C-alpha cells in the first residue's frame, strides 16, 4: 500500500515546524564568547549552533604568503564530528574546503585588509551542531567576531538561506526542507552597502523565483543585521578597560 506523502507546507502556508513561509527559526546571537581569541561570536538558528573566533592581525605564516600592501585572511569552516546525524570523519571534507573558500571571500569583501600590510587574520568557524543554514550562520557569526576583535570592516555580513519547497519560496529552510526541497540558496550581504558578498544556489529556480528568493533573503538579512548590532552593543555596554587582563 502506498503511504501518503507527508506535505511540508499546508494549504494555508504553514510549514512542518509551524513557521510561515517568510519566518526564520528562533535566533540567538552573542559577541565575545571565547576569552583567548581577539574576537568571537556564537550563533544559534533553530538547532544550528556555531562558534566563530578571530585571531589577529598577526604575523603571516609562512612568511612568503605575506602581502606587501594588505593583510591576508585565512578561514576555516569546520564541522564537529558529532554535529550531524551519524558521525562525520573529523578531517576537512571537500565540502568544508569549498565552504571555507566562499566564506573567506565573502569576508574579504568587507575587511579593510589594507590597514594591516604584511599580516594575517585567522578566522575559525566551528559548527557544533548542523541543522541547515550552517554556512550563512557561519558568515553571520564570523563577521560579528571580526567586529568584536575591533578589526575595521565596511559592514557586518549577515547571511541566511532561502529555499524552494513544494513550489513555494521559503526563508531559512530547515534540514528536512533543505533535503526534500527543490532548491537551496545561501545569501550573505553587506546591508549598509546593499551588496551581496556570498551567493550560491543548489537546485532549480525560474528567474522570477530567483528574484523573489533574493528579496526574501534580504528581509531575513535585515533582521539578523539588527540582532548582530544588538549583540555588539550588549557586549560593549558592559565593557570596561579595567576588566581586561
Amino acid at each position, binding site marked *: 500500500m502506498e503511504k501518503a506523502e507527508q506535505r511540508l507546507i499546508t494549504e494555508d502556508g504553514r510549514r512542518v515546524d509551524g513557521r510561515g513561509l517568510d519566518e526564520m527559526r528562533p535566533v540567538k546571537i552573542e559577541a565575545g564568547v571565547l576569552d583567548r581569541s581577539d574576537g568571537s561570536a556564537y550563533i544559534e538558528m533553530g538547532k544550528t549552533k556555531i562558534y566563530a573566533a578571530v585571531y589577529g592581525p598577526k604575523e603571516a605564516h609562512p612568511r612568503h604568503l605575506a602581502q606587501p600592501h594588505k593583510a591576508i585572511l585565512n578561514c576555516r569552516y569546520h564541522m564537529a564530528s558529532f554535529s550531524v546525524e551519524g558521525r562525520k570523519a573529523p578531517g576537512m571534507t571537500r*565540502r568544508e574546503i569549498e565552504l571555507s573558500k*566562499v566564506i573567506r571571500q565573502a569576508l574579504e569583501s568587507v575587511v*579593510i585588509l589594507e590597514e594591516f600590510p604584511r599580516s594575517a587574520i585567522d578566522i575559525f568557524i566551528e559548527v557544533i551542531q548542523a541543522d541547515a543554514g550552517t554556512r550563512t550562520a557561519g558568515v553571520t557569526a564570523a563577521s560579528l567576531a571580526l567586529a568584536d576583535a575591533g578589526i575595521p570592516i565596511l559592514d557586518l555580513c549577515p547571511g541566511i538561506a532561502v529555499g524552494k519547497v513544494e513550489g513555494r519560496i521559503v526563508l531559512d529552510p530547515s534540514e528536512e526542507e533543505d533535503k526534500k526541497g527543490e532548491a537551496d540558496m545561501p545569501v550573505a550581504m553587506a546591508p549598509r552597502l546593499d551588496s551581496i558578498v556570498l*551567493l550560491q544556489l543548489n537546485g532549480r529556480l525560474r528567474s522570477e523565483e530567483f528574484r523573489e528568493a533574493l528579496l526574501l533573503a534580504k528581509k531575513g538579512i535585515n533582521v539578523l543585521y539588527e540582532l548582530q548590532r544588538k549583540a555588539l552593543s550588549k557586549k560593549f555596554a558592559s565593557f570596561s578597560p579595567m576588566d581586561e587582563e
Partner: protein
Amino acid sequence: MYRIGTKPYPTKIMHDKLYELILRGERLDGRRPYDYRTIEIKTSIIEKTDGSALVNLGGTKIIAGVKTSLGQPYPDTPEQGNIVVNAELLPLASSFFEPGPPDEKAIELARVVDRCIRESKMLDLEKIVYIPGRTVLVVYIDVYVLDYDGNYFDPAVLASVAALATAKIPVYEVRDGEVVLSHEAKTSLPIRRFPVSVTIGLLGDKIIVDPTSLEESAIDTSIVLGWSQEDEVAAIQKNLQGLISFNVMDEIIRVSKEKANELRTRLMEAVGRVGIEP
C-alpha cells in the same frame, strides 16, 4: 601608501583601463562586453573512455572524460545511480597552478560542475539502477584543465556535458540476482537536459562575460550561473571576493540566461542533438 580598497598599482591600472573600455562597450581583445571567445567542442577523442570531449574557449583548453562502473548506491539514495566529479588544475596549464592534490580552487571547480549536472537533473539517475539499494551505475567525470586563459568553469561544464551526452556505456542485465554484462551493443546515458554555465565578471556595476585571465586579475568580483534549461537556473557560485550590488542581480540573470541559451545551442549542435526527448 595604500588606502582602503586600493589594489596594487599594476592591478589598479588594468582595472581602470578595463572600466574605461567597458564604458565605451569595448574590451582589450576586441570583444564586446557580452561576447564569448570562440568555442570549439570536439567529442569522442579518448578511445579508452566511455565518453570524452575537448573544449577550447579562446585560450582555455579543457578535457573531460567519462568512465562508468558498477557500484553501490549512497544510503540516502538507494534508487539512484551515482555521479562523481573530479577536477584538476594541471601545472602544465598555467604557471599559477601547482602540482599536488586538488586545492580549494580545483575542489570548487569540481563541485560547481557537479552541481550544474546534478541539480539540473541532466541524467535520469533512476534509470541507471540495476538492483535497488545494491547495484547501480557509477558515472565518473574527470575534468582536466590543460591550458588556462581565464574562465575554466564554462568550458569544464561544456566538456563534461558533451562527454556525457556522447558517452556509450555497456548494457547490463540482471540474471539470478546478479548484474552481468549483456552482449547487446553499447547504449547512451539517459540524458534529459543540457546544462551550461555562464561566468560573469564585474567591474563596478558593469558586466563582462567570459573573462580572460588578464581580465580576471583586475575585475572586482565574479559569479558563475549554471542554467539547466530555458529560464531555469540550477547552480550559482559567487567565486571571487568582492561586492555585487543588489540591483545588478537582475541584469546578471538576464544576460547569463541569454548567453546560456546561445551556449546550449552550440553544445547541442556539437553532440548532434536537435531536440530533447522528454
